[in-house]
């Protein structure tokens, strides 16, 4: 009769109690999976969406561009660098872009805004939110052409439609005011008012010409990576490239501090809630184990009388906590799996309650509540709950090992 077997039988002496306790652990698993999973999903979504808004997960820019984005700062030899970056392990895409401020004017109105000059050959719905959000027309196909894709609100302000002319004016590398003409080939609606109201996509070669940039000069290489969590590592890898020596390499956290702040804040709230729930569950386990120890005082007395040492008794109760938490975790996995499956595949649609254009930190958020759990998060949840359960067992176990034998034998 080993300790495990004995502990296992002991926890099933009170089936109801064990099941309720196991349920509360299982409930904890479900909660943690729901919230961490929703966090993992939402944050990844937000980060990926944010990345597709122009700067990527990792951004290569001219030194100092981040603080003062003026077009006199630029990267040289971007094509070489881009190819080097694309060849790196974990990079799914890298695009060369020029980002800048511009005035957009039609005969009716002129509106201040910003542009992203792109090479249509490298842009896709995957890596570019604006292209993904085109509701009318399409993206221009000629990198040296006169196309422009603008936000729907910007189009409305300018009172232009597909095929109409837009003049953009900006300050070039020498500080000269330069303008050029473009015709609207597409209109996008992201749902985020600011973006729809100021952003435009322009063909990169035309912009290079307008700005008197050389063909391999640009302001940004936006690197999209396969797993957003590796942004820091990728930044270091990119920064280590000899071609990137004269450039700043930033992660999305640095290029989009607002987004990073929102995520950090949300995470903090999430962790605090989960911590409190975890504490509550731990107290539940503590309560159960303590009760169980108290009610078995006499039994422990007998065990000690027949020669079981306090240490072994301590171990016995710890093993009971262990099995209790294993049962709880398994129960948790059983009740969480269908729930997670549901969240993973279908999600809860909140668009009825919240509307579809929902943005945090300047990034649109899917109103459908879905969950995607990272493997690491799953391990962390199970590990944390398991540790909590064991911690909660410590005091009762110590209590058990401390039972004075005579007293216990007297209790009937």
């Amino acid at each position: 009769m080993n300790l495990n077997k004995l502990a296992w039988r002991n926890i099933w002496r009170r089936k109801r109690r064990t099941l309720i306790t196991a349920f509360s652990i299982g409930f904890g698993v479900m909660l943690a999976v729901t919230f961490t999973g929703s966090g993992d999903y939402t944050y990844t979504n937000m980060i990926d969406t944010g990345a597709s808004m122009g700067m990527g997960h990792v951004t290569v820019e001219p030194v100092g561009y981040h603080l003062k984005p003026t077009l006199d700062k630029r990267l040289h030899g971007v094509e070489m660098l881009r190819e080097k970056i694309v060849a790196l392990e974990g990079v799914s895409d890298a695009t060369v872009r020029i980002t800048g401020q511009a005035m957009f004017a039609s005969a009716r109105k002129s509106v201040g805004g910003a542009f992203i000059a792109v090479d249509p050959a490298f842009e896709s719905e995957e890596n570019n939110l604006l292209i993904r959000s085109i509701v009318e027309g399409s993206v221009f196909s000629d990198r040296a052409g006169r196309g422009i894709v603008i936000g729907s609100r910007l189009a409305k302000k300018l009172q232009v439609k597909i095929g109409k002319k837009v003049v953009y004016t900006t300050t070039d590398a020498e500080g000269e005011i330069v303008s050029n003409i473009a015709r609207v080939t597409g209109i996008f609606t992201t749902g985020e008012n600011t973006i729809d109201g100021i952003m435009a996509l322009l063909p990169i070669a035309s912009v290079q010409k307008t700005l008197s940039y050389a063909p391999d000069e640009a302001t940004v290489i936006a690197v999209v990576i396969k797993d957003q969590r590796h942004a820091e590592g990728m930044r270091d890898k990119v920064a280590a490239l000899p071609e990137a020596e004269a450039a700043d390499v930033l992660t999305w956290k640095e290029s989009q501090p607002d987004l990073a702040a929102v995520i950090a804040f949300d995470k903090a709230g999430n962790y605090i809630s989960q911590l409190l729930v975890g504490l509550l569950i731990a107290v539940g386990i503590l309560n159960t184990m303590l009760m169980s120890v108290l009610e078995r005082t006499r039994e422990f007395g007998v065990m000690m009388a027949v020669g079981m040492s306090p240490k072994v008794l301590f171990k016995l109760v710890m093993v009971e906590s262990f099995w209790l938490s294993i049962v709880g975790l398994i129960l948790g996995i059983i009740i969480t799996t269908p729930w997670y499956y549901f969240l993973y595949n279908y999600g809860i649609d909140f668009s009825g309650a919240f509307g579809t254009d929902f943005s945090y930190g300047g990034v649109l958020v899917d109103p459908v509540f879905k969950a995607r759990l990272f493997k690491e998060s799953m391990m962390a949840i199970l590990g944390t709950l398991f540790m909590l359960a064991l911690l909660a067992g410590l005091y009762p176990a110590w209590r058990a090992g401390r039972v004075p034998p005579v007293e216990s034998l007297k209790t009937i």
Partner: protein
Amino acid sequence: MRILTLASRNVSRNWQRSLVTMLAMAFACLIMIFFASLMEGMIQGSERSVVSMNMGDIQIHAQGYRDDPDLYTRIDSADELVTRLQQQGYMASSRIYGYGLLAANMASSGVHLRGIDLKQEMTVTELYQHVGYGQWLVEDDSNGVVLGKKLAATLGVDLGDELVFVGQSADGYMANDLFRVRGILKSVSDGIDRMGMFMPMPTLRQLLVIPEGAHEIVVIRGDRTADLVAETAKVGGLVEGLIEEGAAGLEVKNWKQLMPVIARMIETADVQIMIMLVIFYIAVATVVLNAMLMNVFERIHEFGIMKALGVSPWQLLALVFAETFILTFIAASVGLAGGWWVSDYYRIHGIDLSSMASSISYGGIAFDPLWYAAITTEALAYPVIFLFVIAALAVIYPAVKAALLSPVKAIYYR
């Protein structure tokens, strides 16, 4: 009364078991109160960030100003309106706005001028407490201005630096003047951060040649708990009264109407918090349920003896409930005191999230990185009530079971 005495003796006789049960319940109660306070604090903090920072509860504009913020679309009798509102127990302050170009060194930027009635403004918003560097405006320093955070960065200016403003005054002439950076705000809202330049109202009146009237009147309810919609209607009525005296059409809107996206976001947060609270209550329920079930089931044997001694099922039931009541009462008291204490600590000190993020902005509004708890009657009362309800529910089954079991079975119950 005898039952209560007996119950309390039982509680103290089984003091270890009682203590364990009570501690679990008290802790659950504490956590619930703390959590509810944190969530309430988050909502209040968000509202405060929106309302108290700059928006106010209600804003009054001349008809059409919001769609096209024209220098000439003004509230003519602004001073009178402010006085009237104050007589009605509101706090109100008028503001004037203007646009132009601000330059420093060789950098320049479009700027949104904001003329502030310094004395009144302090009664309605907390902007004056939100200066990151330097100082807030004072009347004596008429050319000392306070800039939005990003504007200051765009211009590359520091405290004391010189600013040149060029624009057009209301009479069509060129408006230009030199200003000095007196303060730089912390993050407030996207608009203010990027474009905002605050100055004393007389300075702006002189600069833009606007001798009277205002573009905006910000109103704060005298009673923070008063219904916003009703108060908006009331202010609307008050304004209506003035219009008959010959003023132009005015528009009265509360912040939820002015910033529907933010209002909806806060409502969403409300929903999320409700969900979190429900989850919390379920977690608490399992803990309390288990604790109470254990406490009663363990003692069915003992109840059997009591029945054998002639205690009636009803008396037994009453006894169990009395015991539960005593346990819950003590636990709730301790939990309430503890929860209150913890919440109060965080109400004063806040949880500092600024190490994670210097500024947090949702939908263009900057929120305070210090997360304060807020104690409301609901946050204190609901957990306590819930504790009693759950304890009562948890104990019904075992208590009835104990009451109905035959004494012999009860004695040998395990």
